[in-house]
């Protein structure tokens, strides 16, 4: 019991950061972290993880997240949390806070598969092979998906392409 806690403890802040960026919602993110811990704890006591602990935990979170997406297939993009919806109309470069809100809103517009790869590499600083293990896809798919995600995010941040309900006030 304490062995599990010892091992997982250091990964908790990273799981929370990733979940927050992935879901764009504070409550949903912590729900996802909790479900991940719960699932991890059971699996940990059934058999020792085959992967190193970090990719193993992130893989559990990925599976739970994908299940949620499938369960709510109507939703193509994740909902933008309440705290950001007030800032949907943003003035570019007005302040750091608005830049962050803009980034969060743009991330939400990426297909979730692209968002996952982007965040695991760019935010969690994982190697391509680690990401390939976590998501269960070939490294080649990681690299092509990553390039698409970054190109799309850049276009969205530059105000190109449709932003859905996001309006940029000039």
């Amino acid at each position: 019991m304490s062995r599990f806690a010892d091992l997982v403890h250091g990964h908790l802040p990273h799981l929370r950061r990733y979940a927050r960026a992935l879901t764009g919602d504070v409550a949903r993110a912590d729900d996802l972290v909790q479900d991940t811990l719960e699932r991890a704890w059971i699996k940990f006591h059934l058999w020792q993880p085959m992967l190193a602990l970090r990719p193993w935990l992130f893989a559990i979170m990925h599976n739970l997240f994908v299940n949620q997406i499938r369960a709510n297939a109507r939703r193509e993009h994740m909902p933008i949390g309440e705290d950001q919806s007030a800032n949907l109309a943003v003035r570019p470069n007005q302040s750091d806070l608005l830049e962050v809100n803009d980034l969060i809103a743009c991330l939400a517009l990426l297909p979730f598969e692209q968002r996952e790869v982007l965040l695991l590499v760019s935010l969690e600083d994982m190697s391509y092979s680690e990401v390939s293990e976590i998501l269960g896809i070939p490294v080649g798919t990681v690299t092509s998906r990553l390039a698409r995600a970054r190109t799309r995010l850049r276009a969205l941040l530059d105000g190109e392409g449709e932003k859905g309900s996001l309006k940029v006030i000039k």
Partner: protein
Amino acid sequence: MSIGPLREEDLHAYADCELDSARAAAIEDVLTRDSTAASLVDNLRAQKAMLHAAYDGILNEPVPHRLARRVHAKSGSWQYAAIVASLVIGTGIGWMLRDARDEQQRVVLPRHAAAAHAVFTPEVRHAVEVKAAEEAHLVRWLSKRLGARVRVPQLNALGYELLGGRLVPEAGRPGAQFMYQDSAGRRITLYLSTDVTNRDTAFRYTRENGLHVFYWIDRELGYALSGDIDKAEILRVARAVYEQLNP
């Protein structure tokens, strides 16, 4: 050093430190001459910096108590709550979350399962009430009686054939037992109980009357796998059962 035609992926791999030093040096050489490539790399780095600026604050946030509280309220598992509590607020306090009712449940489930195993496995002709040939009927019937979605794990790949199942009384409520048999005629049983007041996902082991019992509670059902084959073998089957019920 020639690196052949430059692909966009190479620039990403360079910015992500995925290249060996020789290849990275070759890319650096290209970047001094190719301003388009250089600006792409700058942009990738800026994107990374932006993501870190937006989200790194979370790393320093205290892990919210909400996590621990929710776990306690939802699962009622003192062991699990203790783990999360120890993650969140330090070791020691977990014992305060111990729930006497859960404790009782933890003892009762494997005991009942082992008793039902001992009663029915010696039966030759009447080991089960509904035979495996009528599996669909068995599942519908038991789901209806237990008021829960009952599923029968398939253990053929592990060498255990389903013989069938039966309804059993479990603390005044309907419970169920599935019986499996290997080629040597050794039997294991999976016991399902609806007498669970809390969602408790802990996976536990005990010995009851010489039987090895692995048991856990998953949402509205308690499960117990019993057998007198060796412990590692029962564990192997229990893992398979759990995985099938929680794909």
